[in-house]
């Protein structure tokens, strides 16, 4: 069945090769399209799409230097430039799995593999455009944000047993979830699942359970979906969300880790993993994830200065845990820092931050005099009054001092900062990373997880709990946590470990406290 509306379409063709662009344009003209615009790179394509609304965009994956096709789609989606009524067709010669998986995340309407002949193009476009024609009222309603109208249109379409019932069910399920119509969503997904166990309906049903607060059930179902189809990325995303709701940061990291193994080119998941790993004090995972995020971020609209700084910060911090890996990463970190001025708008604060982090990395590498020189340079420009700077910059300065073993000025600075931010829970969470014992409520609760390379954190927890018990009296829950934590640390700590002495001291203290309390009880 042919489509007969080609002459009315506004089409944008994006490719860096003149030849291919011309071939596609010629094919489109043969189909009857009169209004074809072309763009030679991603930036131009995004500009054109902002300027006018197209009915269809045909975009090659490989666009030479600059954004690739997936990043064009990403920017159009993230900035809500692409309307529902516009079809986005991605064309590619390469079909590497990770590339396709990364592209799926942004849901192109179709995926065309080269070689493309006029017959192939005609067949695919006929099909896509016929579907679009029938669903256009729904798309328009979505573009107007008229969700109730879209819901009614979807229902009508499904009731009339339309050829596109399946598409309408997918749209309708999402709309129900968006509008909080959980019961309706559940009925819809269950009806689909009665016929066939389709991934999208299973994930949909898990989302319903999540929205209804049944996190355990959602967890179980999502894991079952993943067992059956380990490449269902949407299931990982919903599961990650679910782990967060369950407050299980360990599982959250495991899920994200697995997800980026399967689809390594997703910037969003790499960033999520990096942030989660930092919260979990797993610097090795964090550094690697940030390194990949920086690389993937090139030309992406989600690229962000913080990712670059965070990568370098983590690489510098890693010198305390894994010198070998830190050496390896720090070279890359210095390069990333040196590229900041070309990639981001520089303010005096950004400049100071980049220099402070550079100083940290250099100090880790053992380039003391260079690191000191840079630190002095920053201090001479920002002066002794750092209050106008962000908490991050102030902490960067403390870390730089620490990296250079200037412990006394570092401590003084840190004490000042703590004084200034005592009431600011968010800042305290950040400050905690530099302390022996956590100050923020949040971190006291979180510190109990064990990461083999960060025994200090667990000892910090024991110390904090001891402090509390010494002040307010023995607490059974605290005591159990102390003993369990020490046991975990005991399995990992070796006599040569930097934390070994502290471990022994804390163990003694806990034992004494335990005996003392036991003793008191005896007297009673």
């Amino acid at each position: 069945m042919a489509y007969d509306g080609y002459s009315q379409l506004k089409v944008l063709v994006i490719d860096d090769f003149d030849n291919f662009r011309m071939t596609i344009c010629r094919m489109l003209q043969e189909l009857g399209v009169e209004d074809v615009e072309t763009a030679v790179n991603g930036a131009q394509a995004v500009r054109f799409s902002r300027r006018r609304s197209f009915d269809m965009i045909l975009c090659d994956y490989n666009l030479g230097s600059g954004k690739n096709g997936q990043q064009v789609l990403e920017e159009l989606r993230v900035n809500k430039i692409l309307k529902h009524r516009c079809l986005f067709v991605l064309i590619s010669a390469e079909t590497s799995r990770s590339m396709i998986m990364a592209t799926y995340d942004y849901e192109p309407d179709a995926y065309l593999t080269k070689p493309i002949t006029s017959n192939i193009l005609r067949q695919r476009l006929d099909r896509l455009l016929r579907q679009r024609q029938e669903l256009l009222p729904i798309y328009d309603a979505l573009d107007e944000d008229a969700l109730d109208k879209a819901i009614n249109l979807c229902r009508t379409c499904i009731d009339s047993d339309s050829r596109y019932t399946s598409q309408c069910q997918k749209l309708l399920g999402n709309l129900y979830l968006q509008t909080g119509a959980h019961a309706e969503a559940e009925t819809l997904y269950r009806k689909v699942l009665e016929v066939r166990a389709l991934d999208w309906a299973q994930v949909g049903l898990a989302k319903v359970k999540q929205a209804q607060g049944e996190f355990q059930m959602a967890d179980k179902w999502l894991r079952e979906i993943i067992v059956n189809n380990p490449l269902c990325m949407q299931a990982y995303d919903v599961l990650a969300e679910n782990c967060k709701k369950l407050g299980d940061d360990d599982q959250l990291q495991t899920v994200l880790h697995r997800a980026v193994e399967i689809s390594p080119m997703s910037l969003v998941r790499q960033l999520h993993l990096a942030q989660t790993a930092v919260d979990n004090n797993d610097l090795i995972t964090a550094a690697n994830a940030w390194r990949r995020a920086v690389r993937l971020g090139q030309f992406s609209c989600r690229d962000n200065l913080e990712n670059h700084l965070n990568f370098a910060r983590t690489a510098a911090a890693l010198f305390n845990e894994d010198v070998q890996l830190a050496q390896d990463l720090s070279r890359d970190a210095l390069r990333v820092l040196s590229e900041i001025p070309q990639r981001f708008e520089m303010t005096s604060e950004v400049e100071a931050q980049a220099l402070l982090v550079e100083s940290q990395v250099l100090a880790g590498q053992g380039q003391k005099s260079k690191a000191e020189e840079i630190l002095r340079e920053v201090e001479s420009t920002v002066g002794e009054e750092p209050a106008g700077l962000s908490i991050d910059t102030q902490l960067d300065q403390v870390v730089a001092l620490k990296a250079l073993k200037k412990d006394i000025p570092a401590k003084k600075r840190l004490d000042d900062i703590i004084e200034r931010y005592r009431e600011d829970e968010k800042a305290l969470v950040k400050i905690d990373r530099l302390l022996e014992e956590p100050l923020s409520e949040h971190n006291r609760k979180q510190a109990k997880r064990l990461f083999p390379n960060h025994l200090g954190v667990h000892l910090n927890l024991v110390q904090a709990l001891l402090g509390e018990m010494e002040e307010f009296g023995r607490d059974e829950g605290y005591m159990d946590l102390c003993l369990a934590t020490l046991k975990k640390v005991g399995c990992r700590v070796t006599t040569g470990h930097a934390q070994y002495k502290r471990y022994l001291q804390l163990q003694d203290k806990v034992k004494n406290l335990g005996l003392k309390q036991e003793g008191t009880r005896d007297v009673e």
Partner: protein
Amino acid sequence: MSSENSNGINKGSKNDRDTGLDFSLVLASSVHDMKNSVGMLLNSLEDVINSTPAQNQEQRCQFGVLQYEASRINSELIQLLSIYRMQNNRMPVHVDEHFVIDLFEEQLARNYMLFETRGVHVDLDCDADLNWFFDSDLIGSVVHNVLVNCARYTHKALRLNAELEGQGKNRVLCISIADDGRGYPAAMLTAEAASIGMDNSGDNTHLGLFFARKVAQMHCQHGTCGRIQLENNGPLGGGVFKLYLP
């Protein structure tokens, strides 16, 4: 959900234990490059044929050979890559509801030039409203391979047909591709022959059949999995390839 494996999330990757050179990985990435190159080659070839149409029968034949051989390399490489991914459990199976006619039309459009240059007429017999559940990329590859193979062995005609068989839970989609050639060799008609390496006598590794069988097996419902079947003396007098999907 107590054991490590049952939750589907394991931290360690399979490749961890493999520190040496993994030849299959080398092969796979090289196959990937080759496939892209052949893709470009096919594209240019298409352009050449379009811009300088064949002047006589001899040229038409030559174009046909070029087209056929390049398509064959392309589909063999795609198969190799797919089988590699299947073995590493990294083959995404994306089962969804599709119209069978769309699948057929896509493959016919893709192989239009091949049939044109070889003078093969294709008869499409499929209800436009017939829909079923399958991974359209994988089943598309299977149909593509069979079509490319048939283009070589058929005389003048091919017939594509799809219909539902059975009732209720036993309902299956049957896709059949019939030709008017000499039919499949007797050895291929037995199920066992469709495994790799069974037939070392000729130049045919039966990779295509192996791939088709694997893809069919990846489509399961109510405890039954898909299967393929080869027959002779079909509706056009030649062989018939049948693919059953539950």
